[in-house]
């Protein structure tokens, strides 16, 4: 192979690897960012109400702080047993460019909370409460710190 062609090939290879590396970094970074703020573990409402500064640790090492006003709002609509059962923050699952989101319902208490917050009955199917975007906006307005978004790769894939 002539030397000029070899040089051209090597230059193209370098350019390609730089481009690929930048692209892969950017894409991997995006995937990392979206779920970095998820809590390491959820905590019970009753436990959070007893804390001076209610918070949970996130996967990226940061803390997610709850507003006491919101916790008291949740406590006002639940009994003592349900306060022990409700795990916070509640997870809102999104994925696949769908027009709806789903609140993950672990103990059934979430269904009651979402229903009361929206002022309408909601159904829980396969441990998910399906919500449309306007309902999601309303729910987020009332429960800003006690709900977090989860971008599910299972739904996206």
């Amino acid at each position, binding site marked *: 192979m002539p030397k000029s062609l070899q040089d051209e*090939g090597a230059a*193209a290879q370098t*350019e*390609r690897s730089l*481009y*690929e590396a930048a*692209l892969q970094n*950017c*894409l991997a970074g*995006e*995937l990392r*960012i*979206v779920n*970095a*703020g*998820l809590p390491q573990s959820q905590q019970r409402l009753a436990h959070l109400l007893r804390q001076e*500064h209610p*918070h949970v640790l*996130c996967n990226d090492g*940061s*803390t*997610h*702080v709850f*507003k*006491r*006003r919101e916790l008291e709002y949740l406590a006002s609509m639940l009994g003592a047993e349900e306060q022990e059962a409700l795990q916070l923050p509640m997870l809102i699952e*999104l*994925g*696949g*460019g769908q027009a709806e989101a789903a609140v993950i319902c672990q103990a059934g208490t979430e269904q009651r909370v979402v229903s009361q917050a929206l002022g309408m009955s909601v159904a829980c199917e396969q441990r998910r409460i399906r919500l449309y*975007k306007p309902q*999601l*906006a309303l729910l*987020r*307005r009332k429960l*800003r*710190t006690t709900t*977090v*978004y989860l*971008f599910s*790769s299972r739904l*996206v*894939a």
Partner: protein
Amino acid sequence: MPQLVKVRPTKIELVKLKRRLSLAQRVQKIVKDRLSILTMEFLQTARDTAEAKKRLLDEFSKLYKALSIAAGYHGYMALEKELVSTEADLKIAAGARNVAGVRIPSLELMEHRRKMRGYSLTDTSSWVDRTAELAEESLRAIAELAELQRSFELLAAEINRTKRISNALEYIVIPGLQVTINYLNMKFEERDREEKARLKRVKVLVARG
């Protein structure tokens, strides 16, 4: 017009390109979801900020009215003398929360309703109580507005960034990969046809020989 990605025309490169396309399409879906959520949060925050600003102005207006009446009733000197002893440190619980990958500050005024405010209850009137109560409400409104305003700015910056990524994926990266994959597929088909033609020619030559 999307540009071809510079690759060697080999089957391995084609497989790699297909993988990259699949990854880019998955990321595009996530980025679009994220963008729609960020936009929803941004609009909500914008509405809340406007409401909080209006509420704060109302609180200030009520507060200044109450303060003027209290000052008129007691006189500036007497009021100032009473208020000297009411100074207290503010306690604000500051933290952060995460909204679709954006760290948003969370501010909450602690103990904003105190039973004893420090001034003499016998030497002052209910106008001073009312003024103090309204001042505490204003502080709460200020903390709320500060949180919303900062959230508004952070969400706007993140929407801009995410939109750029989404547009780059939609109009440059994915079309470029698709065009390159098509180009490589056509190249391989052309090679196959050439190979067939060569084999036929060789067959004819062998038959003649």
